[in-house]
């Protein structure tokens, strides 16, 4: 069981423990996240639920032999909305590097356009009713420390060059009606 998987498993276990026997027990994960986000007394529930969602999404954002230039709809929209692939890489890395502490870099589809955003800790665009997450990159230190230690930039480069699953991004765009 990989170290990163242990984090995900812990979030799942914690979440299950928190919703058992409550009225949230049979709700969807997205619904639990949104309800917890709206209630400042439910920070523990939010953190675990959101991190379950974020990590599941993150696994789908990667594939062996992935990375490099995008194809299909996401490539088109990166050109149209984000100034092309090279600019996207710069800005996505800036988002990941500029997230001081723990968090995530995101590609989201909102208002008919692609945007690059970043969130701290467990926060997620799932809570934004107008945004559809397209891709994410985990920049919590546990995501890269064993392989890259302090060098978050090297990890981000490897993620973009070798791992990004553009098929998943295109699937998310299609689901959003892009």
């Amino acid at each position: 069981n990989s170290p990163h998987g242990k984090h995900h498993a812990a979030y799942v276990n914690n979440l299950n423990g928190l919703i058992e026997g409550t009225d949230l027990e049979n709700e969807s994960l997205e619904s639990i996240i949104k309800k917890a986000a709206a209630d400042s007394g439910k920070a523990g529930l939010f953190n675990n639920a959101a991190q379950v969602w974020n990590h599941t999404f993150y696994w789908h954002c990667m594939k062996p032999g992935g990375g490099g230039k995008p194809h299909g709809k996401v490539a088109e929209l990166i050109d149209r909305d984000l100034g092309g692939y090279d600019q996207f890489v710069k800005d996505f890395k800036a988002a990941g590097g500029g997230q001081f502490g723990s968090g995530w870099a995101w590609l989201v589809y909102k208002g008919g356009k692609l945007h690059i955003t970043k969130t701290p800790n467990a926060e997620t665009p799932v809570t934004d009713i107008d945004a559809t997450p397209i891709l994410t990159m985990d920049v919590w230190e546990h995501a890269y420390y064993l392989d890259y230690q302090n060098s978050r930039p090297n990890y981000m480069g490897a993620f973009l060059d070798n791992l990004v699953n553009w098929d998943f991004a295109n699937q998310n765009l299609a689901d959003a009606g892009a």
Partner: protein
Amino acid sequence: VCRIHRRDKMLRKSILPTLSRVGAAVSRASVSGSRAKSSFTLPSLPYDAGALEPVVMSEIMTIHHTKHHNAYVTNLNAALDKYADAEAKGDMATMIALQSAIKFNGGGHVNHSIFWTNLCAPKDSGSVSGELAAKIEAKWGSVDDFKTTFNGTAAAIQGSGWAWLALNTKDKTLSIQTRANQDPLSFGGDGLIPLLGIDVWEHAYYLQYKNARPDYLKEVWKVVNWKNVEERFNEAK
């Protein structure tokens, strides 16, 4: 539940006496001349990188000190230089935009500078004594109960941050505090002085303890330099 405090004050160099700096006060920008470059420097570890083994492995100490702390110093100096240039031009937008980098890197430099002195080889750890021990026992029942409470609080910090044993200089009370990311404990604003900090950023323990932050917290007390913690208490009280 941890309370996360956010402070967006500019760090003042003059109230950070513990930070090592080369040279005297930095000269202010003049109408025609340029100011001297910011010169915060990385302090040395007061021991070899391997001195805290087996509690904290030497590879962690080396990377933590020469990469992470060093980057805070480098980036702090760079941000301060940019700030000074912006200030000389009256470029308020840039001055404001730089403040999060100054807070983050300045806080990182302050926090880690304290942290290295709070730690020592296991054989030098000793135990808390004197007035500080009495205050800890009065507040938490026993030193062990204090550690248990401290560890529970530190383990529960979401994401990156620090847990502190703090002295309130106004009412002389001790408390356990948490701060997110590299937010510093305080610079006198609310009277809190840091006595002992434990870094719970993943970089502080991940290579050795992986995701088991509670295991790191259980072990780290073996390398707490109680002499240093008491010195800080005696100086601040």
